[in-house]
């Protein structure tokens, strides 16, 4: 009965998720998404990692242009998230999982999808709806993504503070953890929290504009600008819509902040409106690379036991590599001018920041587990003698695995670029991370054309959508 409702597969307990995903990711790196799909570790409903395996599946199906399948899988994940959110305050099945986790490891706990992964889920879902020419469906997903970000903002601060206090009560100070745990500061970069995703806001602005809701678009562009204040594309969009909507206060404010080019460039743009040269816009979303998987690190931490004595324990903790890959992004030349895309989200940094914020909770659980396992070993050695002692010790070592689960098929970094084009068909050569690619698209007057580009290793692919 218990296993039926909250099951963990045996392999999850003794092998790390990053190892299980290794084949999938190398197939993804080669651009062979069909093969990657067959390699995803299968999880049935009721498994603690069910929603995670659906996320990986949905993302790979999205890459393989199987938008309907991808949509169905993401919808299932959304249902799971909804259920978890509306579930009772005390869920007995979670208790069982926690008990299982105390005698094994964190992989026995249900995978709760962090906020940045949820916002990406809705962004992909919106793009899935768009590929089926369903703008109103895409907007529903955008509104869901905004709800997620609002919720995250509310939940965040207090939670981090509380979890640090809890960890201190278990005898681990944040300082001693910080001194032993490998730093992720380079990977985190300038990200301030692990959930605010400017890409989702920007996409939402683009779609609101397509639906003729300029005011809603303006609000979301401004939110994206708050997170990425130096992104020129976002600055241009904010400036453009501020002028269209007559946001006089904002215009005064942005005039000081933005560079001359943007503030001037658009006053020319408004002059153009009186002598109309028809144009439409090309919006390019460039996904680059694959996000890193979590790795397992072992650290020795001094822990004060309840008897007041200090002992060193070895903990297996998840961590991200402390480096960021450099991407040159997308560059193109058009009518003698050179254009360069700029970053709108660094998912690797969001993931690393999210993990850093969760660390106190993970360490607290780990300490409880170590003490419990030590107690079990003592009991067994008392009853089973040397052999029992050895077996228990072996089990403790083998089952001491970090929880390295995370959505590992996401892109690493996403760039954006927006350009004006004359209406009609165009063929433009674009340079993505050193690969040349000719992109065909059609521009309609006063409409946006969305081109989504994927660049993974040497694989590039694009799809153009008329909004």
């Amino acid at each position, binding site marked *: 009965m218990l296993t039926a409702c909250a099951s963990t597969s045996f392999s999850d307990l003794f092998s790390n998720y990053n190892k299980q995903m290794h084949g999938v990711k190398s197939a993804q790196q080669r651009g062979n998404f069909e093969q990657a799909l067959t390699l995803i570790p299968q999880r049935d409903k009721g498994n603690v990692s069910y929603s995670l395996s659906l996320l990986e599946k949905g993302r790979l199906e999205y890459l393989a242009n199987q938008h309907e399948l991808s949509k169905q899988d993401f919808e299932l994940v959304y249902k799971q998230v909804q259920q978890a959110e509306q579930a009772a305050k*005390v869920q007995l099945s979670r208790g069982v999982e926690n008990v299982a986790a105390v005698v094994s490891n964190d992989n026995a706990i249900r995978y709760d999808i962090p906020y940045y992964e949820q916002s990406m889920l809705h962004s992909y879902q919106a793009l899935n709806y768009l590929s089926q020419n369903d703008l109103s469906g895409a907007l529903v997903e955008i509104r869901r993504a905004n709800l997620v970000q609002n919720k995250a903002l509310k939940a965040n601060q207090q939670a981090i503070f509380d979890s640090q206090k809890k960890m201190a009560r278990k005898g681990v100070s944040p300082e001693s953890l910080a001194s032993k745990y490998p730093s992720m500061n380079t990977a985190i970069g300038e990200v301030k929290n692990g959930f605010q995703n400017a890409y989702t806001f920007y996409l939402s602005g683009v779609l609101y504009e397509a639906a003729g809701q300029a005011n809603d678009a303006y609000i979301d562009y401004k939110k994206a600008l708050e997170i990425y204040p130096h992104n020129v594309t976002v600055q241009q969009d904010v400036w453009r819509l501020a002028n269209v909507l007559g946001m006089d206060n904002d215009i005064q404010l942005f005039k000081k902040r933005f560079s001359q080019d943007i503030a001037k460039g658009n006053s020319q743009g408004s002059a153009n409106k009186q002598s109309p040269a028809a144009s439409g816009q090309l919006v390019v979303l460039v996904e680059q690379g694959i996000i890193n998987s979590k790795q397992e690190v072992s650290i020795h931490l001094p822990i004060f036991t309840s008897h007041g004595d200090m002992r060193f324990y070895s903990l297996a903790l998840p961590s991200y590599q402390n480096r960021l890959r450099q991407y040159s992004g997308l560059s193109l030349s058009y009518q003698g001018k050179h254009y360069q895309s700029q970053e709108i989200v660094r998912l690797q940094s969001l993931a690393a920041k999210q993990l850093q914020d969760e660390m106190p909770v993970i360490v607290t659980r780990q300490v409880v587990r170590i003490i419990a396992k030590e107690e079990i070993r003592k009991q067994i050695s008392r009853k089973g003698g040397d052999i029992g002692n050895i077996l228990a010790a072996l089990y403790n070592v083998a089952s001491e695995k970090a929880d390295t689960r995370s959505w590992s098929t996401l892109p690493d970094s996403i760039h954006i670029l927006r350009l004006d084009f004359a209406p009609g068909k165009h063929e433009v050569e674009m340079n993505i991370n050193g690969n040349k690619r000719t992109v065909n698209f059609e521009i309609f007057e006063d409409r946006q054309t969305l081109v989504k580009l994927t660049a993974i290793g040497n694989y590039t692919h694009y799809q153009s959508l008329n909004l």
Partner: protein
Amino acid sequence: MKKLIMITSVALTLTLVAGCTNKSVVRYGDATEVETTDISFGSTDLQKVAGQMTDSLLLSPVVGTLTANSRPIMFVESIKNKTSEHIDTESITDSISTKLLRSGKFRFVDMSRVEAARKQLDYQQNSGMVDTAKAMQFGKQVGAQYMLYGNLASIVKSNKDQTDVYYKFTLRLMDLESGLVEWADETEIRKTKGKEFVSW
């Protein structure tokens, strides 16, 4: 005595087993029954929205004068879904137009079937299969005088104790010639779901 224990224990096991094998049962229910399976937009909301809107439209004095001597021709533009749920708004407009038609006060043209009608007329005119004297003619359809359109918006809030959803449905009737909005009304629905304390 032993036999008795045996029998009771067998009976107990049987009931336990029967309890565990949860056999699915098919039943017919009342289609207008209040449905509270979950908090998302459901059949009760749809019926409530469509019912209240048609009642309000049919009872309004403006519409009374419009329909006093004639049966105005209407067409339903889509209902814009501004909620955070994937709702089939066509099914709301279907309910509303059916109810209005049933009242006998309005006539409708159906924009979603224009293509099919064109195909049929084309067949009658050009296939050579239909007696041309009896074939329906192109260019004889009548145009709609009024347009019915609306919005469905929602506000969702949740905290650790409950989730609250507020729906607002707005419907408007526009005179296509003058561009005047002759009638408008809105319906609100509020649903709250409290969290249980303990569950599996």
